[in-house]
């Protein structure tokens, strides 16, 4: 039987689906008997889910155009450096 402390140590691997069958069984046995750990598991899972669901940020138009200009400038400099006199 896992203690709560051991459960916490394994929580990440469990969430990332990186535990073997036996450990998984121990963890699942623990959460059926320990309501607190069940809540911790559930709310940590939801924490990850809510961040994964975040909309990818749209790059502000001005930021994007300054980026393109910076790259163009670099390419132009490169060209002028390598171009024969």
């Amino acid at each position, binding site marked *: 039987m896992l203690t709560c402390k051991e459960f916490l140590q394994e929580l990440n691997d469990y969430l990332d689906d990186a535990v073997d069958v036996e450990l998984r069984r121990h963890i699942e046995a623990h959460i059926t008997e320990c309501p*607190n750990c069940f*809540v911790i598991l*559930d709310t940590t899972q*939801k924490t990850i889910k809510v*961040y994964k669901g975040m909309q990818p940020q749209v*790059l502000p138009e001005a930021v994007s155009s300054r*980026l393109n200009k910076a*790259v163009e400038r670099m390419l132009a400099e490169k060209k002028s450096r390598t171009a024969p006199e």
Partner: protein
Amino acid sequence: MPATTETGIFDESALVAKAREGDTAAYNQLMNRYSPKIYRLAKHITQHEEDAEDVLQETFLKAFEHLGDFQGQSKFYTWIVRIAVNESLMKLRKRKSDRTVPLDEPLDTGEDTVVREIAVWDENPEQQYSREELGQILDEAVQSLRPVFRTVFVLRDIEELSTEETSEALGISVPAVKSRLLRARLQLREKLTRFFKRKGDDVFAYL
């Protein structure tokens, strides 16, 4: 696991090969694809819009300069993430010059994994908030983490890099990635509980 489709991987390596031969249109395509992610990542780490923009530009300028060094053993995205993380950390250190932010700072064990608040959340807690409000809650929670935890969390759970890719991007060991991620997740869980817990509930209902 990173959410990259088969076609994504294929396109990427073809574009990188073209860009390496000097095809700027191909490089522009790579840039268009990844710049929003790199900008978000830089903003999360530096917590500063101007710094994030500098990081974004530096990243794509340096990546182009060094495209010849890119071996193709890791994914192009992981490679530029690594450049972006380094640039971001440099910005962070510059801004907080009184207080360095070493990525390998020794961490005490256990302290941060203490769970203080245990409360059941609503089934879909995010639905109680508008997209804007939710974004603000999530951003503020991440920003309140210490940089060592924040960086790992951003790479693993927001940018969805694997544990190995995160370890590679940050130059820290896999166990270090794992332990920092656990702390980050638990701390965020705790912070979000304040917003997402089911109304009228408390821990005693479950004892």
